[in-house]
């Protein structure tokens, strides 16, 4: 798609110095704020040579953190996809009392600081919390264990899929689904053959954003995980821990792994974005 008007075509010739200056400034700011720190992470991680880097990455605690982070993402993203789709479908296709409220509730995690989410879960499931004694009686461990980490991550990532899918579903309307209905398709066939193909790229996009967030979440997880080395430490927590241990190379090695994960996710996101536009 080409814009009808070439950007800058309306600007007078003599202002070109000014526009070059502004562009240069933007590039400089981007470099200082984003690019240089990113490169610095890898540079510091590899400062003492690849051997030390590998040794730090292969440290059992760091490896466990990588695995735990991946596990959390693998659990939360599918749950997000299912619940996010269901919510988007409900809000886009039906009018019912409380529809606006539901939308607000789904978007709430965007505006609430993750650490507050963590504290809420702490107060709810903690030993002195509302459900704490009941859980303790049933011998169910939620806080300082995988379930707690998964729950807060779900809280933090809840809006992503719905936010991406809902506007598309609203814009497309339900005419295609009604057409499929009159042609004799069952509910599941309509979903699989008509609804899903129409929103598939928005869905992938939402899932990618949700996984990026799930992998990188620090605040909420740090409250509920208890940061037990080799047990409940996710990668972002492990980085902080290594940093506090003054193991700079270790911290940067772990950070580079996390950065790599984030870059891969963003790469997928960019590819998906290209697909969405060409559709």
């Amino acid at each position, binding site marked *: 798609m080409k814009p009808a008007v070439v950007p800058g075509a309306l600007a007078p010739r003599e202002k070109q110095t000014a526009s070059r200056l502004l562009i240069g400034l933007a590039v400089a700011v981007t470099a200082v704020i984003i690019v240089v720190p990113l490169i610095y992470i890898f540079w510091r991680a590899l400062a003492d040579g690849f051997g030390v880097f590998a040794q730090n990455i292969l440290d059992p605690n760091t490896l466990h953190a990588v695995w735990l982070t991946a596990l959390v993402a693998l659990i939360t993203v599918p749950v997000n996809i299912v619940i996010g789709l269901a919510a988007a479908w409900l809000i886009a296709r039906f009018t019912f009392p409380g529809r606006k409220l539901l939308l607000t509730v789904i978007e709430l995690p965007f505006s609430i600081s993750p650490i507050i989410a963590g504290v809420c879960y702490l107060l709810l499931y903690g030993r002195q919390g509302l459900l704490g004694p009941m859980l303790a009686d049933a011998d169910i461990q939620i806080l300082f264990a995988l379930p707690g980490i998964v729950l807060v991550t779900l809280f933090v990532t809840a809006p992503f899929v719905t936010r991406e899918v809902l506007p598309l579903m609203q814009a497309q309307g339900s*005419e*295609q689904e*009604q*057409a*499929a*209905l*009159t*042609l*004799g*398709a*069952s509910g599941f*066939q309509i979903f699989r*053959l*008509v609804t899903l*193909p*129409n929103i598939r790229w928005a869905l992938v996009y939402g899932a990618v954003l949700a996984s990026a967030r799930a992998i990188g979440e620090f605040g909420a997880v740090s409250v509920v995980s208890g940061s037990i080395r080799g047990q409940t430490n996710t990668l972002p927590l492990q980085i902080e821990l290594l940093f506090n241990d003054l193991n700079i190379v270790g911290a940067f090695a772990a950070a580079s792994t996390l950065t790599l994960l984030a870059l891969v996710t963003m790469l997928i996101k960019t590819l998906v974005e290209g697909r969405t536009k060409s559709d």
Partner: protein
Amino acid sequence: MSLAMSNITRRFGQTEVLRGIDLDVAKGELIALLGPSGSGKTTLLRIIAGLDWPDAGNLSFEGQDWLLKTAAQRKIGMVFQHYALFPHMTVRENIAFGLTVLPRAQRPGKAQIAETVQRLLTFLQISQLADRYPSELSGGQRQRVALGRAMAIEPRVLLLDEPFGALDAQVRRDLRRWLRSVHDSAGITTIFVTHDQEEAFELADRVVVMNGGVIEQIGRPDQIYDHPATPFVARFLGLTVELPVVMKAGRAEAAGFDLTALPRRALPEGPATLFLRPADIQPVADPAAPFHLTEISSTGALLRVVAESDSGCRIEAEVPRRDGHGLETGMNVSLCAVAGQIFPGLASQRASSPVAAETTPHALKENRL
């Protein structure tokens, strides 16, 4: 009787969209639901399709109660206003959809589905489009594909919502003739919704004129054109000149008008309203008449003539240009009505001014998305 509706009522909140619809459709008929936007015609179509349910009333097809059946069980072919083609499927896959989603026990074999689709593609004259995607088709082509998809399931009734609404004038006329020929050779009972009077009259066997959730008139196009049953239908069909008259012994009388050409009507003595098409009014030179011509303008084939009386009455007439060369502004004329429709009592006070005539176009514009 193939499709029978009685007393169908539908409310959306406080708004009564349908207020007791009674309609019978014979097998193989082509019916137009004609009306301005908000008349309830699309709601009625959706109720027949099984996409909406009435609050009261009955709907049956060949004796079966359709209100107990889902849209899928009714086997209707629905063509949506914006076609609702599946964008990720080719034309061939779109048309095959209704067959591929059948339960395994009823589903024809792959070769048989391909054969049915090919036959439809040929029948609808779109074979060359078979492997394209909807985004690569023009509006008229999409319309044909949408009809093909609906016809693939061999529907008992074909329903079309504003089938030509989103197309430009030339394509619209072509597709209209094409649809008529498709209907005539396939013989499927067909109901379509339109706000365009010309479209309804050219295409349909019978036209159902709707307004405000009720049926104003049902009839053959000529019947409705010649004898509009209500003031609404009269205005909707372009009888835009509304003249207060007095009934005397079955004849209408109005000062300055010659109404003797109109047939006698068994209406009570007293005030009534005469509805006329501007084309059915002939100005005749008459020095003693109260009307004089104030404006004459040409549209090429027609002369548009405005006559005003001393009492402030303003009448617009249309005369074929070749018959009107004797007319000049300022001359006194009497007005001779060739045809018209009389309704007892005084209809709403809509003066027959040019403004009123212009705000009542023959086809009410409707712009829904």
